[in-house]
Every structure is written in structure tokens, then in C-alpha cells.
């Protein structure tokens, strides 16, 4: 999937899914899992999700939103949005190269 960075390790793919989920607005863990399952078909478990959240927060790509509720929402930061843009661009290049080599033409009937 996305280009792996040593800091994110095996959480690279999950981190990308989280960034995509948060790109449309702040969410807490439960809503992130549901959203990610909906748009990617990937069912995340809590340990994996929070492993990725911890790394994303450490890198400053997401941040918690202050709330008095038990469920703490997270939002994507400007740095996170920039990283997401780069990762999606990489994916786009990979997708185009793959489609060209496989002779696929998306959208062709």
C-alpha cells in the first residue's frame, strides 16, 4: 500500500486509513473503526487502531480534541493532511504503473 516509513512500521497501512478517516472531520475510536470498515472493508481491532493513533499523535499528524466525554475525538493536523496528500500521490503513481503494466483501463466498459 503506502510507502513504509520506519517510524510507523507495520502500522503504515492502518495509519493511512486513519488519516483518510479523519480527513473528513474529527472522530473518536469507535467511529473511526466503523468508518474505516465502511470505506475500505478493513475491520480494525482496538489494539491495532490505538497502536497507529499513538504513532500518529507522536508524529504530530493527528491530535486529540479536548472534551469532557469519555470518548476522546481526534482530528488531523496540517502536517497530517500534508502527509496524507503525499501518501495518496504515491499510491496514485503505483496504481497508474500497475494498471499500465497489467493493461487495465479503469472506467472502460
Amino acid at each position: 500500500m503506502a510507502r513504509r516509513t520506519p517510524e510507523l512500521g507495520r502500522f503504515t497501512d492502518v495509519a493511512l486509513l486513519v488519516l483518510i478517516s479523519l480527513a473528513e472531520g474529527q472522530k473518536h475510536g469507535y467511529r473511526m473503526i466503523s468508518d474505516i470498515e465502511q470505506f475500505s472493508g478493513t475491520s480494525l481491532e482496538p489494539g491495532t487502531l490505538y497502536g497507529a493513533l499513538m504513532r500518529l499523535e507522536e508524529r504530530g499528524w493527528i491530535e486529540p480534541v479536548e472534551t469532557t466525554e469519555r470518548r476522546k475525538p481526534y482530528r488531523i493536523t496540517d502536517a497530517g493532511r500534508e502527509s496524507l496528500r503525499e501518501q495518496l500521490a504515491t499510491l496514485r503513481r503505483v496504481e497508474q504503473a500497475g494498471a499500465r503494466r497489467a493493461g487495465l483501463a479503469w472506467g472502460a466498459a
Partner: protein
Amino acid sequence: MMRLLAALLLQLYPRPWRRRYGDEVADLIAARPVRARTLFDLAGGAADAWLHRRRIPGATPLRVPPALTLPFAAYTLILLWTPGVSHAPSLRGVSASAAGHGAIAQRLAETATSLFVVAGVLGLLSLAPLVTTALPALRGSGTVTRAAARRVLPAVLVATALVGVFHVVFHQLARSPAGPLGAAMAGGFLVPITLALVLLAPMVAARTPGFAPDVCACGTQLAIAAICTTLGWLAVGVLLALGLAEASQGFLTAVAAGAVISIGMVTLTARSVMRPSGKLADPAFVS
């Protein structure tokens, strides 16, 4: 049952992680179905959180207290004594081979021995500032209270007695060092344990009001002792390099491990007294 197991697995996460994410994950567990893969995922997540503890927002570096580390290191050092200091074939071979390089081998052995002796003596003398402050207080004069002196003096006596008992018992039970190289290295194995036993007194003094300057002086002397020990091992290292061809693999491994543990122990001992992070020289504890 599965939810209960999941809640128990959450307890395996590091405390800073639980403080930061515990409620959120507990909430997720309560709101979603818990399956076997959830449990495996949580167990893996706990291992990951421990392995990458420094990534947890707000986590402080994990510090193993010297009271746990030093006894374990000392025990390992004692275990390495026989394959290191008493391994006659390698020690004699290395000594003979090094002697071929002239008088430098003998000078290196003497240097190592002297440095280790100085380190040990400095370690014992590091208790002197505590004694010179505590003794006048017992007679009703001095800068600290009589009660404070009554706490510190017994600690000094116990530390000194422990050093004495250790050396007597060790020399009775352990095999003697083989050859001049073994004798030169022996101090490198014994000094760290001596300093670790001495540490008891400054630990008590650091928690006793009025002893802050003495604890600092003690820490300085222990730091100099640590430097002497490191230099002593450096001399041993050069000596070994001169006769490397005669050393067996097992002997070299034991000596290398002994040197690393020895230097690590003396450094940790000095740091425990000097660094505030060790909570020994912290003003909050000493005044």
C-alpha cells in the same frame, strides 16, 4: 468472559498508555463484539506499547531502579569470575605473549591493578564526608541533627561491614586469579560490587535532611572511582590485545562481558548518587 479477558489484557499495557488511552479502549471493548482475534490484537498491542514505550504521549523514560539492577549485575559478575579471572590457560598464554612486547605488558598490568585499587579505596573513602558530618552531630554540635546522624552512621557502618564480609567470603570461596593478568583483572570484578555495597550509605543520607553537600561529595568520589575503573579496564584491554592470539573464545567473551558489566555498574552507582533523576541527590529528598 471474553470482555473480562479483554479488560484483563488492558492491564498489561504500560501505565502511561493506560492513563492516556485506557478509558477510550475500555469504552471500545464495551461497545463492540469481543472475539478471539480481539484478544490476540490486544495482547500484541500491549507488547508493542511496551516495546515502543517512549512513543506514548507523556511517557517518561522507563528507569529500572539501581536496587534491582545492581544485585543482578553483581551476581553476573561473580559468575564470570571463573571463566575470566581464573582461566589459567588463556591468562598465562596471553601474559606470555604480551611479555614478548617488552616491559609495556608489565606496566599495563601494574597500571590496571593500581587503577582498580585506587577506585576501591576511593569508593570506601567516599563515605568519609558522611562520617565527618554525622559524628559531631552525635556530640550535639555540627550542621545536622542528632536524629539525622543516628540514621546515617548505622548505614555507613552496615555498608562498610557488607564490603568487609563480601571480600572475606569471596576470597574464601572463589578461585584465586591466575597469573599476573588475572591478578590485574581481579579488581575490575571486585570494585563494582564494592561500590554498589557502599551505595547503601549515600542512599540513606540522601533521604536525610542536612546531608546534601556530603552526598554530593560522595557522588564526586564515586564518579572518580568509576573513571579509574574504566581506565583500568582500558589497560586490561590493551594487555589482552597484545596477547590476543593465545586467548580462547570463551575467555574473551567472559572478560568482555565482565568489563561491560563492571563499567556499567560503577557508572550506574556514581550516577545514582549524582543525578537528580536517580532521586538520590534530588533537593526534595535531601533537604
